[in-house]
């Protein structure tokens, strides 16, 4: 039933094949085009999952929940590959990258896609763990691709912290298996998601608790929750911008997805501790912490990396609160954040290329010198700051209002955090986009299409959401409980 033409397997097979191919092929134009093509095909396959969903096997599963993630991942992966084509071209010209590394880069890109898709469609918690580890390793390699001291060091930091995270996550996974074994019986079934979810109520609560603690810390490291976030800013700042976009836009989501799965597991077991409060706490900590960290940033990419931490905090908070409204808001916020943040990184990438630096101090008056880039960035920041009529406002509206009625104090902390973050972002935006032009003013040869495509989607979502999508999201929200 899982032939290579089956969409589920296609989502995995296409990137894998592309990776193999791209390692072999020389030539920048060709490989870039192939890269785009592969991601496009993957996206199409993912979309087709709407229509024909395969019955879950012991390894693969497609349900409402991960379908959201898959479509989002493949879409952003596609647009990012388009952006990366023009971006990497420029990198080649200025000689920051050599063709050899470029080949490697494209292969790794596809491998990352494969790993993330695998992690999403995996019906087996072990496979999921392996996939996430794979994704981490590929990104580690790509972060270090510039071979500068800073890049290598960032990659190294990412690698070490990531490995510890992986180890903790594995321990959690093992514990889940042990909790499941007495109920489900030995062997594969005790790791198959669809089986676990049906029997969760009978599991040993104490084991589940310990398991969740380890999973929260293990995958939380990938999500970038404070205080486990340390790798994130440097990895974003030092890697190639497309990778920063993918990291912020996708990898964090994938890790969060894993976390959500296990949260559902715990939620089904009445005797186990409620996962909500833990996630709420970590979410708030990340939000407030990141908001303050934004102020002293001098590197534009690192700043937006911290903003990603902030938003991951909000999303985790929303899912932690639970309930139909908050869960819906969390999903919406995650989608919007992926689109917006990657759009911002597209803009930032070109800006950094125009200015020849990532130091905020060396940028200024972009709306004068490069109006399209400048206004694109302004729009992006307005969106990420949660100002209407863009999509993030809706999710923040739902989060705050639904929370304030239930836990006022939390809502007030949340609001303060958001406000502090907004203040910091605009403080920097003012110097980057407005005022007297500063720094080099080259013409950017860039493809603005991906950026504006994302922003347009965010804009539309903020005003009008197609009912089908809404119903779908609401189902997922119910699923998450």
């Amino acid at each position, binding site marked *: 039933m899982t032939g290579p033409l089956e969409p589920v397997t296609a989502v995995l097979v296409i990137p894998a094949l592309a990776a193999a191919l791209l390692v072999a092929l020389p030539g920048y134009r060709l490989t870039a085009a192939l890269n785009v093509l592969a991601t496009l095909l993957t996206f199409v396959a993912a979309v087709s999952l709407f229509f024909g969903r395969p019955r879950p096997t012991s390894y693969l599963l497609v349900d409402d929940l991960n379908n959201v993630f898959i479509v989002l991942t493949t879409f952003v992966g596609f647009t990012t590959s388009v952006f990366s084509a023009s971006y990497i071209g420029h990198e080649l010209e200025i000689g920051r990258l050599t063709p050899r590394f470029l080949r490697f880069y494209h292969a790794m890109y596809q491998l990352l896609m494969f790993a993330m898709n695998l992690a999403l469609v995996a019906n087996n918690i*072990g*496979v999921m763990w*392996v996939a996430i*580890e794979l994704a981490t*390793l590929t990104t580690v390699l790509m972060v270090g691709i510039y071979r500068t*001291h*800073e890049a*290598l*060091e960032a990659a*190294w*930091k990412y*690698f*070490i912290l990531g*490995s*510890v995270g*992986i*180890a903790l996550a*594995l*321990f959690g996974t*093992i*514990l889940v*298996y*042990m909790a499941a*074994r*007495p109920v489900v019986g*030995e*062997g*594969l079934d*005790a*790791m198959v998601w669809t089986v676990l979810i049906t029997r969760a109520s009978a599991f*040993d*609560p*104490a*084991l589940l608790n*310990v398991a969740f603690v380890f999973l929260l810390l293990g995958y939380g490291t990938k999500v970038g929750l404070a205080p486990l976030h340390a790798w994130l*800013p*440097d990895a974003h*700042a030092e890697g190639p911008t497309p990778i920063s976009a993918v990291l912020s836009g996708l990898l964090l989501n994938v890790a969060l997805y894993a976390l959500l799965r296990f949260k559902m597991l715990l939620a089904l077991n009445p005797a186990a501790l409620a996962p909500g409060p833990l996630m709420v706490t970590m979410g708030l900590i990340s939000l407030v912490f990141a908001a303050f960290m934004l102020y*002293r*940033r*001098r*590197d534009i990419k*690192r700043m937006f990396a911290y903003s990603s931490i902030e938003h991951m905090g909000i999303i985790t908070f929303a899912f932690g609160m639970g309930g139909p409204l908050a869960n819906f808001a969390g999903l919406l916020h995650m989608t919007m954040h992926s689109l917006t943040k990657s759009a911002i990184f597209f803009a930032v990438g070109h800006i950094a290329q125009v200015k020849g630096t990532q130091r905020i101090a060396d940028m200024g008056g972009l709306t004068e010198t490069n109006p399209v880039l400048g206004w694109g960035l302004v729009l992006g920041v307005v969106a990420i700051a949660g100002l209407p009529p863009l999509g993030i406002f809706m999710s923040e509206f739902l989060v705050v209002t639904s929370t304030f009625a239930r836990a006022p104090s939390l809502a007030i902390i949340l609001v303060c955090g958001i406000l502090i973050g907004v203040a910091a972002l605009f403080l920097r935006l003012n110097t980057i986009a407005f005022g007297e032009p500063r720094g080099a003013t080259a013409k950017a040869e860039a493809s603005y299409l991906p950026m504006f495509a994302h922003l347009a989607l965010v804009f539309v979502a903020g005003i009008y959401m197609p009912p089908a999508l809404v119903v779908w999201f609401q189902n997922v929200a119910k699923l998450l409980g």
Partner: protein
Amino acid sequence: MRGLTFDIAHLLAGTLVLVSFLELYQDRLYALLNMFALHALVLALSVAWQAYVQNAPHLYVTAAIALIFKAIIIPVALHHIIKRLGIHREIEKVVGVGSAMLLGMGLVALSMVVMLRVTAEADPLAREDLAFALSVVLLGLLMMVTRRNAVSQIVGFMSLENGLVLAATGAKGMPLVVEISIAFSILIAFIVIGIFLFRIRERFDTVDLQALDRFRGDRG
């Protein structure tokens, strides 16, 4: 028979914890490496024992990996590196041996408390193993954060990972154990190569000597 298997497994797991403490106690790199070799050896034994008890032959592969890769290759490689970098001096610790030991005790106690809350009907063998595995993991982590020296931090990481393998093998009939242990061995190989490549003497965070403290994120 049942009692015996339980006792042996328990003994081996306990030994593993003990060896972790010994590692924590060492303050010379060579001695530390030897201790780690012992650690890996004990792990291999206990895995083999589990393989025998659960008569799951694939676990022997894991045992073999533990024996060959961790107990022999890695220590040798690290010896090599230490010679190369000429750092067979004292290990600079963050906290003294005594306090490290106390912390370790606390951690073991903690893992016991946490694990013994597990309801009794889960079979005792696995439960004890789990408790020990958890303590080994925690001790490994403790080692990573209390040592300033790259090599000893790796050793810490590896013993953490030994704890994982212990747990995985203790979980009866758990699939993918072999794959996981292989994956981890690759991971460790990466780290070791990385250290060798970047000539990290003192800490993880600097890529070479003159880069020490130069770049740390967002300065300047």
